[in-house]
């Protein structure tokens, strides 16, 4: 007998996964750029945008993930 499909995870869960995984990559590259300033010679690079934007993305992603970790939709 065919098994009933599981309930679907909401889109917000996937948004959280994507933001946190991409944010982690941005944060790691921000750390690398911080330690070697020759890598990223862009305008305003002294503000280290990848570093804090990565943190913002991870935080936003975790909020979505945690809020929807147990949620399912019909």
């Amino acid at each position: 007998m065919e098994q009933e499909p599981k309930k679907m995870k909401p889109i917000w869960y996937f948004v959280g996964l994507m933001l946190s995984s991409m944010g982690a990559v941005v944060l790691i590259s921000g750390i690398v750029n911080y330690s070697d300033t020759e890598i990223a010679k862009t305008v305003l690079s002294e503000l280290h945008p990848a570093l804090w934007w990565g943190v913002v993305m991870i935080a936003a992603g975790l909020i979505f993930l945690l809020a929807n970790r147990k949620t399912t939709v019909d």
Partner: protein
Amino acid sequence: MQSIQLAFSDWLIIAIYFGFVLGIGLYLKRFTKNENDFFLAGRKNSSWVAGLAFLSANLGALELLGMTGNTFKYGMYVAHFYWIGAIPAMIFLGIYMMPFYYSAKIKSVPGYLKLRFDEKTRVLNGIAFAVMTLLVSGINLYAMALVLHTFLGWDWNVSMWISAATVAAYVTLSGLLSAIFTEIIQFFLIWFGLFLVSILGIIEIGSVNDIFQRVDELYKTVSYTTLWSTSADPSLNGMVITWGGIVLGLGFVLSFGYWTTDFLVVQRAFSAKDLRAARMTPILASFFKMAVPFIVILTGLIAIVLANDPKSGFALVQDGGQVNYDSALPLLIARYYPPGLVGLGVTALLAGFMAGQAGNISAFNTVWTYDIYHSVINKKASEAHLLWMGRVATVVGILISLVTAYWAKSFPSIMDYMQAIFSWVNAPLFATMLLGMFVRWITPNAAFWGLLAGMGSSFTLFLAVKFSWIDGRLITLSDVASDMAANFWRAWWAWLICFVVTIVLSFFTKRKPDEELVGLVKGLTPAVSTEGIPWHRRPEAYAVISVLVLIALNIYFW
């Protein structure tokens, strides 16, 4: 120009995006069991999901690049596309039109025309929409390859085929549901991937006030930073248009024509779980729509300031001696974004292109399957057969888009006609819909011939001005006018012709009996009951707030 170089972290972010959209397509396939799931995402979406998808279906990368470039060219008047050129229409759709659409349980906008009028009007609109959608889809694909080739040095063929194959894979697997999921992912990618450009631009120049001040200093006789105060005289604003063209052409006809009748966006509202959620869909989307200028208009103005500051070293790309306005956003990404963030910016643009492609294809497969194939070719098709046909239409639609993209590559000026294409199809359709929903004595034959006359006149006016058969001033009602102004005015005339022809012919042709119009026309349809819904959850309450925000924005930037 020198291509933007991508580091390993940039490629990794792009790979994560492709992994996500393909994974989501595979994951959702198990929940796509019948034609209702495939074409209408099972009609179980919340208003937030449907609302963000409704907005994102329109928020493609071509729009982001084009509107940033247009701001560079025309100034802040471009914000009219996001405010008066969208919000009133979205509110009208949610409050007044959605009850007719949703309650009729139709699967497409042409499906409403069949119920309200007859089969021939449905097929006419279905064919026009299918052709328009594939044309736009192909041009989008070409535009994506052009951007990736120009700024990243990527190969044309590889860009087009990989993105087309990815979209074909996930839409074929799970239809509208996966299209909606990827549209929402695109929404977040665009904000997280591109809003940082505005933030860094503000930091570099000083403040938002400094940006406006410096643009004003550059353009002393023509306003680039106001919305209405210079609209009485077209020579005083960057768009070279009067308020009449903005209100009638953009604010009324083009905007209402697009947002209330274009199936690409309206399909997202059809996927909502109930009537309240469907009505809330465009109203919630209106709040996010009003925020988009904080990316596109702001970056356009930042680009103006930097391009006119010799110390900044910033200049737009020149193609054959002509300024490439669409280069503003990619060049700002290259200016501010270090490795990692560049990948995020590029992925945001890629997501915009691909989600736009998926949106067009999911709308096309529905209209083809129901309004052309099932309506004309195979009336006895089973549900399972229609589901199969939807999947076939997805693959064939993508292949036709690829052919169109190669055609556009050999005929690049086709991109200039995108706005014109919308005015051929959507502007007259809005007149037909408006009369169909609100006037019960409009007849099926009058609707058909009125729609045909509107579409034909819009196309003829376009050719007449293009080849100088008539003086363009007859259409724009002013001595000077930009191409944009001509588009707005042509849409207005097409709408008016369709509107008048439909009304006049209705006096001489046979109307449908009232009992066949119950649920489809105002006056023969019970009013939407909001009983039991607290006031703060009613669509009307959100609509009022949205309109107040719109008024405040227009007054602030008057």
